[in-house]
């Protein structure tokens, strides 16, 4: 995962202060999977050398391009790209490394995927949509935003996706939070995936835990012995989990050494850059929700 110079292909604003940056990075584009991130060497005022993690929102192996979504500034005087990207023009190069971290895992038998995202965190699930549609799975995307203006544009989603929106101010779709919408779809879903602020993810984890009971799904008997125990953190643990989440955290080294990216795990702290950013929801300790 040594960094290399990747070329900026395109740069555009997709919503107030939200920018899509496309890079030519064939090696990463061909190996990236949903839930993984790109480590971008950003240029900081004051000479601070820093890398920031950005979810790989789309990856096209054939053209070798991938996109990330990055927050810029948006105000009365118009909006501008993220400060580190403001001087970049298509054709310019920036130092990228990736893919970082573990991917989301879809159970091969899952036909119906329920995706839940709030705000810019949609970028963490965006690639999963493409992967799922390509594999012929049905996808419902529940999306929460503050207002209609900041809703993720449906034009950036494949037609196959059922897109359901909630806004806090009721200016579009359901008036309320995205979590309110979950009840309507949880019976339909075989598996679900979420990204957004920690309180939302903690709440969804709690919802997922009570799902079987609400739906009246009986767990007949106990699975006896047999089979290996599932290793926490393994791809299998994620594949078998009804809810997977993508965590956001400051990722400074992405090599697992600095221990700056930790999150509370169900059994001790986990590194988001190594054990994550994709987790089975119950691998994490959500504290009092």
């Amino acid at each position, binding site marked *: 995962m040594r960094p290399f110079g990747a070329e900026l292909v395109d740069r555009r604003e997709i919503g107030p202060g939200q920018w899509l940056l496309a890079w030519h990075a064939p090696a990463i584009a061909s190996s990236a999977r949903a839930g993984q991130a790109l480590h971008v060497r950003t240029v900081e005022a*004051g000479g*601070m050398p820093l890398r920031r993690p950005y979810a790989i929102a789309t990856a096209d192996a054939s053209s070798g391009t991938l996109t990330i979504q990055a927050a810029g500034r948006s105000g009365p005087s118009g909006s501008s790209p993220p400060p580190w990207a403001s001087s970049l023009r298509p054709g310019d190069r920036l130092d990228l490394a990736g893919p970082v971290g573990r991917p989301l895992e879809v159970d091969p038998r899952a036909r119906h995927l329920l995706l839940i995202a709030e705000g810019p965190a949609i970028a963490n699930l965006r690639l999963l949509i493409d992967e799922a549609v390509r594999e012929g799975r049905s996808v419902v995307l529940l999306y929460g935003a503050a207002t209609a203006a900041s809703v993720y544009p449906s034009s950036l989603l494949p037609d196959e996706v059922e897109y359901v929106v909630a806004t806090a101010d009721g200016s579009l779709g359901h008036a309320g939070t995205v979590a309110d919408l979950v009840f309507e779809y949880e019976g339909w879903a075989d598996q679900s995936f979420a990204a957004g602020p920690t309180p939302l993810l903690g709440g969804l984890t709690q919802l997922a835990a009570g799902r079987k009971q609400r739906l009246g799904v009986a767990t007949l008997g106990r699975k006896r012995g047999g089979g290996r125990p599932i290793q926490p953190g393994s791809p299998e643990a994620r594949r078998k989990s009804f809810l997977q989440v993508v965590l956001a955290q400051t990722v400074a080294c992405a090599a*697992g050494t*600095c221990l*700056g990216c930790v999150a509370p795990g169900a059994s001790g702290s986990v590194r988001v850059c190594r054990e994550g950013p994709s987790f089975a929801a119950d691998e994490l300790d959500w504290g009092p929700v």
Partner: protein
Amino acid sequence: MKAKRKGVAANSKRTPTVRRIRPAIAPVSRPRGPAPFPPPGGRAGPSSASIAGSSAVSSASASAPRQSSASSSSASSPGSPSAQAGAPALDALGGRPVDLGVDLGRGLALANPVIVASGPFGYGAEVTDLVDLPRLGGLVTRSTSLKPKAGQPAPRMAEVPAGLLLGMGPQNPGLELVLERYASVWARWQAPVILSLCADSAGELGEAVRRIEGEAGIAGLEINLSCGGGGRGGAIPGLDADAAASYVAAARRGTDLPIIAKLTAQAADVRAIARSVEGAGADAISAINTLPGFALAADRRGPALGSGYGGLCGPAIRPIALRVVWEVAQAVDVPVIGVGGVASVDDVLDFLAAGASAVGVGVAALADPMLPVRLADELADVCRSLGVAAVGDLVGTALPARTGPASTRGAEWAR
């Protein structure tokens, strides 16, 4: 106090701060053409360190001028490389290799003066595929304690202007596990590994040091004086000259390994601490550790970090680190390792001029793991273009002549 006196006596016999190790094979004739001086091959002992350094230099000189050395030069730094950038042909040394070697005392020889400070590379084994480890001047490990430590709750990092605020706590798996897992790995490495130790008390430190004695693969110890107690009112030892000395003395009693004492700039007068640890038997001093800071969470409902306070690192603390190095270098005879905000070769030159014999790269190595190796290459380029044959000649060039004892007044009066 007795131990301290004794230490001073021993120290006064010490050889000068920077002992340069010249290549065993001195070049006699000028090499023809652009080919750099060929690196002399496999020899053991301290001289091989400088040979390794020289070979790093030759490979550096073979390539075009480097981008970052030209990009961020400060007019004030001596030999600002930008002045020479674009003139790679200029070689005032006539093709002779630059001697980058540094001796930190008690046999701790570095092939070049750029090391990785404690923390960013963990125990080193995690970054073997990101870094050319053999080309590092040295590597200081994450601070390790006798017993495992869990560290602080998340979040542990916050972005602040020109720096990062860290709230890690001394998370580590404990000395036993670290030695078991890594000591034999380190023993095979070319770059010296310096094990950083933190302890709640001088007694605990002594116990840890005794446990290490005899382990292969450890080139030296760094005592992190920013964790633990022993200072007045339970303060960290780095704030209190006696407590700092008691830590270093406890380590000194238990080992013949080189000991580096890592100071904190929080001390009211770092020179007092520096003299005290020198007296207690420290072979070198590194400075500085992170400085306590605070940042608010985005919603301003509390701190940004799970630990509340955090340690500030990055370019934001560089002027403080330079001040401390400048003061300490005038106060003691042992070599000083400058740490704090190093991000470019200009920063390295600044620290050397201020009196550091070596520099440690901290947080900058997270974003750019190859930075320390590149800085050593760039340093060699600068030396070559300045006609400086040995990097030691750049050390302390900005220090006032030492005519008498260093001032005991505050930092602002030091001159």
